[in-house]
């Protein structure tokens, strides 16, 4: 058959096909840009460094790729300051044009960074911060939590304390919104008597007054939400005052994790805390994670590192299941919502507000077989626990 008449269109067709393949190939080798904005300086730096290390380990173990495409992780420091976080996020979104954001430790920074991130239609996978606003009324289709909702751990302790039969509990938290939310979460599940509810100052170093009050009111347990250095201060002084003999100490997971344990040491033995993860959890993904983390960084991973690791693997699943078409926001959203990946905490699935429905465990701080002071996971407090704010979330469209 005489084809010269169709040759030009065949040429065009071949060229078009070549271009399309080249485009797809270019897309598949174009890196996935992730903006990892975390607290890397100042007093809270230990937490941010852990998130970063966990995240980067996951990418490394994945061959430097996310969803089959090379990953470019841009690390930035928010200095635990909402204003700095906001303007750094601006840079990551507008100049570096990242495809995903992650990493923030503190809720107040998250609330400042969230608005412009969602407005620019960039997906945010949280490796720690889980403010109640984003679980409820201000929920966004672009926000996904690979960690927990802030209240959950407090709720888990509330239930544990009730189940263990403690009748009179003293509560201590700092006088700021997260502190008040923490105690509200605890009270949601605690059914006994509250011996005292004390709010401390955010800049407080010395807890002598609060300890005297504890000695006077004689509760059988005390629940503290004192993040970072505040918790370290309190626990050291609590044990030094001899109160740990008569009063059992409870805290949320992040007050009883490896970083605090390292700083306090032996005095922390016997403290209970709850978390959605423990480094001794018995599943394949976790065993690999803990072993690799220790090998790479020479220390046991904390909760923050585990969350950073999971955030990376969630992103990996998201990119993979949306076939790398990151411009198709609907596809990415669906891919993230239904992602199937081996989380280090075991079963993982999302609620309608993009917060996880997961199990929470009780941990106690004890000496392990190697003689180290660390957490031991005791049992399950909640199975498939959802947060209290999901009903308030009317998820808007993309």
């Amino acid at each position, binding site marked *: 058959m005489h084809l010269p008449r169709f040759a030009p269109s065949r040429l065009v067709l071949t060229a078009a096909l070549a271009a399309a393949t080249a485009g797809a190939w270019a897309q598949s080798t174009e890196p996935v840009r992730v903006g990892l904005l975390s607290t890397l300086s100042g007093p809270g730096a230990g937490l941010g460094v852990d998130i970063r290390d966990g995240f980067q380990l996951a990418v490394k173990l994945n061959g430097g790729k996310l969803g089959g495409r090379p990953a470019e992780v841009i690390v930035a420091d928010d200095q635990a*300051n*909402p*204003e700095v976080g*906001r*303007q750094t996020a601006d*840079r990551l979104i507008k100049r570096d044009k990242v495809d995903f954001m992650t990493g923030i430790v503190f809720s*107040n920074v998250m609330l400042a960074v969230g608005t412009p991130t969602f407005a620019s239609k960039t997906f945010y996978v949280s490796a720690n911060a889980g*403010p109640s606003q984003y679980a409820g009324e201000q929920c966004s289709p672009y926000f996904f939590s690979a960690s927990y909702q802030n209240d959950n751990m407090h709720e888990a302790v509330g239930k544990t304390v009730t189940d263990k039969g403690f009748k009179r509990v003293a509560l201590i938290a700092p006088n*700021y919104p997260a502190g008040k939310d923490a105690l509200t979460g605890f009270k949601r599940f605690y059914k006994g008597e509250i011996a005292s509810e004390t709010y401390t100052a955010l800049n407080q170093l010395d807890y002598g007054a609060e300890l005297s009050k504890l000695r006077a009111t004689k509760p059988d347990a005390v629940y503290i939400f004192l993040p970072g250095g505040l918790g370290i201060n309190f626990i050291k002084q609590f044990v030094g005052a001899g109160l740990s003999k008569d009063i059992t100490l409870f805290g949320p997971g992040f007050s009883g994790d490896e970083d605090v344990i390292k700083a306090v040491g032996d005095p922390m033995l016997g403290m209970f805390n709850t978390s959605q993860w423990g480094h001794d959890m018995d599943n394949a993904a976790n065993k690999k994670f803990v072993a690799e983390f220790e090998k790479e960084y020479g220390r046991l991973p904390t909760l923050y590192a585990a969350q950073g690791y999971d955030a990376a693997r969630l992103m990996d699943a998201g990119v993979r299941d949306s076939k790398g078409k990151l411009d198709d926001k609907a596809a990415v959203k669906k891919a993230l919502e239904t992602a199937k990946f081996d989380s280090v905490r075991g079963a993982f699935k999302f609620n309608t507000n993009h917060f996880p429905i997961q199990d929470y465990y009780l941990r106690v701080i004890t000496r392990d077989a190697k003689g180290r002071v660390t957490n031991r996971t005791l049992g399950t407090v909640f199975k498939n626990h959802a947060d209290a704010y999901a009903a308030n979330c009317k998820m808007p469209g993309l």
Partner: protein
Amino acid sequence: MVDSDNARTSLHHTLHLRAALPVFLVLLALPHITAALHAEFYVTLATRIAIFALAASSLNLILGFGGLVSFGHAAFVGAGAYTVGILMQHGTVPAAIAWPAAMLVSAGLACLIGFISLRTQGVYFIMITLAFAQMLYYLAVSLKTYGGDDGLPLAGRNTWAGIAPDDTALYYLALGALTLSLLFTQRLLNARFGQVLQGLRENPVRIQALGFPVLRTQLTAFTLAGAMAGLAGTLLANQGGFVSPSMMQWSQSGMLMVMVILGGVGHLYGGVLGAAAFLLLEEVLGHTTEHWQLGLGAMLLAVVLLAPRGLASLRSVWTRSQA
């Protein structure tokens, strides 16, 4: 102690138009330049620099020209920002109401704090201004209705004749505010009031002996500086879209002081140069390493030891060394 660092031959200040005008024209054209280069992000950065330049310049008025080392200046910036935020929370959106209100609030606060603080001198003054700023900070943290430590997000930007400014428009607003403030400061300094103020920095005893009202002059300057800081605060709130107590922390005040000192205490453009240098340095270093604070500290120390009167004085140091 020798005070040669700030000895000046003239208390009269020029606008240095030969150097400043070209820079100003470039700044006017900036949004067009960045749009051509597809680098719109830099307009946001430039806006932020302009806002901090305004805040630093307002501090320069009292610190550089008045010799009043206020360690609580960020509180006035925060007060302006919070006024805007609170008004917007209650539904007041037009800039014509919100911005003057913010400036009034911060000016009023400055007047009150100044009235009590100006009874003291030297390091006592530094500490008492710090104390007041800390009180405001802790007050903001505990106000749960307005977000407390979580901060208060703004629904949008303040509107001008019903229209909310976009990033470029906000840039021009910030640039305009900065320019107007600098012009105002220059006229003020060259007028009798400014001469008295600077005289008080140089030799308070003599000025008082000559019969000029010390407290009234310093308090007026302090109030004006507070108002300008409040204006910076409104711009900051509009740009960031939220207000937070961290704006009022003493470390923010410290940062403003560092900017002023870096740029050149007592030079008209000291605040501008210092803010630009500091923020650009932070931006560049922050990219390079997580240990950027070490580099920043080293550079600041170098400035202290090598360019003792700040960056603005470098030109005169250079010309003098050539003579």
